[in-house]
């Protein structure tokens, strides 16, 4: 799987929900080997060297025949704001495909849960797209999507999935759409009490959601993969900046750092030392200065 640096052209830029943009990029050298769960580093600055670093974004959708991929981005700071404002036609430097993607289910017999908190829907959608046409072509009802956001206006539409027969449970923290409460609560409601459990679970969301889900997961032992985040500079395993504390697989008592860009971004949440994680600070977007 060779990784490539490519000048990708933005073909479309759509505002999908409050603060959430979907960009369609043409990158014929990156797309062929790309897998759901992998990501790209997108350079932000078009002129000058500030902001300096590229930003990581998961493949949101892959259109392999057309050499296209999509990213779904939430505006949280300078870099995402600039990218959300790039008009179609702009070229951006992209490096990818990077990291390990999701491990696909072993077959159509598996019931698969997808837990997406907010922008966490981004990588899960690519995987859903794949399972719907591959393993779960004939059993879309075994794909259970739990998709939560803070409020209605921050939800991106999932109706196409529903039409294909995928089970979609929407929730919002404030109850403005779907079930009220967090997406992990929605997941629990669905499975707890019943004897039924998914055979496999994929998840992506905020750190709080990750921990809450990891707590739920810790007693259970079906396969579970979560796409995690960390501050990144290179995305290719060179700078060692994206470390997260984890258990050493060879010695479960020992601790070692994993590197999100190389060993992940997809991890079994039961490997992560959540108790040793200092969150990347979330900064309110209210502008304080020009």
């Amino acid at each position, binding site marked *: 799987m060779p990784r490539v640096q490519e000048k990708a052209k933005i073909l479309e830029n759509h505002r999908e929900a409050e603060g959430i943009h979907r960009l369609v990029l043409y990158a014929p050298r990156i797309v062929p080997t790309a897998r759901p769960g992998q990501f790209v580093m997108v350079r932000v600055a078009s002129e*000058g*060297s*500030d902001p300096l670093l590229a930003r990581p974004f998961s493949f949101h959708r892959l259109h392999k025949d057309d050499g296209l991929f999509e990213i779904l981005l939430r505006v949280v700071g300078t870099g995402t704001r600039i990218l959300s404002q790039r008009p179609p036609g702009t070229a951006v430097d992209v490096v990818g495909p990077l990291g390990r993607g999701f491990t696909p289910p072993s077959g159509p017999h598996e019931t698969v849960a997808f837990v997406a908190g907010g922008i966490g829907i981004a990588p899960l959608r690519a995987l859903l797209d794949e399972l719907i046409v591959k393993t779960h072509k004939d059993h879309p009802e075994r794909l259970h999507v739990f998709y939560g956001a803070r409020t209605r206006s921050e939800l991106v539409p999932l109706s196409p999935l529903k039409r294909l027969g995928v089970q979609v449970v929407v929730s919002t923290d404030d109850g403005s759409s779907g079930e009220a409460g967090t997406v992990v609560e929605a997941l629990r409601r669905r499975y707890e009490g019943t004897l039924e459990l998914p055979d496999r679970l994929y998840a992506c969301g905020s750190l709080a959601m990750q*921990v809450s889900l*990891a*707590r739920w*997961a*810790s007693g259970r032992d079906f396969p579970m993969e979560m796409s995690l985040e960390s501050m990144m500079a290179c995305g290719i395993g060179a700078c060692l900046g994206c470390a997260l504390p*984890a*258990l050493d697989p060879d010695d*479960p008592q020992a601790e070692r750092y994993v590197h999100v860009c190389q060993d992940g971004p997809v991890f079994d949440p*039961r*490997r*992560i*030392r*959540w*108790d*040793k*994680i*200092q*969150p990347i600070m*979330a900064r*309110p977007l*209210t502008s*304080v*200065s*020009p």
Partner: protein
Amino acid sequence: MGQNPTDHGSAPDLRVTLGPLQLANPVLTASGTFGYGLEFADFVDLSRLGGVVVKGISLKPRPGNPPPRLAETPSGMLNAIGLENVGVEKFLTDKLPPLLKRGAVVIVNILGNTVEDYAELARILSGASGIAALEINISCPNVKEGGMAFGTDGRMAARVVAAVRANTSLPLITKLSPNVTSIADIARAVVDAGSDILSCINTVSAMAVDPFSRRPKLANIVGGLSGPAVKPIAVRCVYETLRAVSCPVIGIGGIQTALDALEFLVVGASAVQVGTANLVRPTSCLEILDGIERFLRQQGLGAITDYIGTLDTQCRFPFADESCPVGIA
């Protein structure tokens, strides 16, 4: 954490006290980037600023360096103005009175080539009325001792400060250079010598070259780097200085926005000086001041002093509680 900002009705209290110096707010201008203040009168109500630190003043007028004196660098600029200034006499007759008339709180940055120069400047300026404080620029070459800057040697820096201290009862700020192995050592030396307040940083020694003409971009070859590029260096210098001494510190370096200023304040600077940003946007200081006020409202803080120095350097593990799963647990 600001998720649900409460916008308070009453204006937050922006007053700060730096030892003997009391200021209406923590936003000052940095020497050499605000001229003699009057250049900005079209853009800024000078009386709204915490203070105006004027261009460095020497005993006699100085013509400055030959051009080119400026070069641009990534997120920064180099200058080698060569301390061009009108001299203390003309400053007192031509510049100070209109500044005071406009209600500015005037801090005079002083520079000399010998310890005696500094002492004499302190004597002359203490005789004038209306000056709020002196700021000693010790980044100048010491002509008596071979041109090495006063500010890079703790003993020499201390001699300058002691000489000034002996000649003035004005609040005394010493402006530190970042071009040293240990800014903490210099800080301790000048505080022991009588400086009431420290300000840091002055510019970072730097150089740029044009690869085509193969010539330095500045006629002076080496110049001082300022602007956003140096902000992280400046924040570190303020942090190290505050750990070394207990006197108030003014943060300087790369401040362009209120958030930049707040970085210094939360680390513990009692005030900030805005430099290069004035050159880029003449209204910067007021925008920063307004931004700080807005921030305090959003955070529900009644006074800037509730924010200054509240840096939290403890490791925080929000998920370290027992109920939290560790690995497969």
